[in-house]
């Protein structure tokens, strides 16, 4: 049992439907967790680990060589 901050206030997670997902590609590893209450999204958090950073498609390392 855990307390989740939601758009309805703090709620016991046992009252909520939990959904989780992970995206892993060359740029990032992202995990997200959602809590739903009667079909309504009441909480969504995202934890993103930056890997190969991009600037609108450009490599982050700027060449000075």
């Amino acid at each position, binding site marked *: 049992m855990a307390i989740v*901050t*939601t*758009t309805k206030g703090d709620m016991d997670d046992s009252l909520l439907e939990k959904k989780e997902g992970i*995206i892993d*590609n060359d*740029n*990032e590893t*992202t995990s*997200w*967790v*959602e809590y739903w209450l009667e079909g309504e*999204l*009441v*909480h*969504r*958090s*995202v*934890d*993103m*680990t*930056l*890997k*190969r*950073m*991009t*600037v*609108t*498609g*450009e490599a*982050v*390392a*700027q*060449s*000075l*060589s």
Partner: protein
Amino acid sequence: MCTSFKGELLVGHHNFGTGVVRGSTATDSFKAALYLASATVNASTTAYSATNEVSGTGYTAGGVAVTFGTAPSTSGTTAFVTPSASISYTTVTLATAFDCVLLYNSTQSNKAVSVHTFGSQTVTAGTFTLTMPTNDASTGLIRLA
């Protein structure tokens, strides 16, 4: 190009033009602002702007402070520096999709440092955390190769 020069650029040792008068040798302050997926924020961006920045409960315009607790370093021919802590936007609701973060220097007139894009996200009464990559020559957040 001398590798030492690249590292010294990251700590403001060289000035080939009209520079700025620094009040001290202390590290500048940096911030990170999030932008909507519809925004045009890229390598041409010169400074922080509130235009098309995300907005929502718990988010303050201008974003959050970024901590650089580790001084710039060099390895091989690359100079690099990475924030020493994750960048977190805590208990926010950002209902409109966003897909990039602008790192900027809030000490030096909010001048832009770098733009980093990612898959678009929303947050609902939650936390968006950007965990930093390993601070080295191949994955550091800011690298002069």
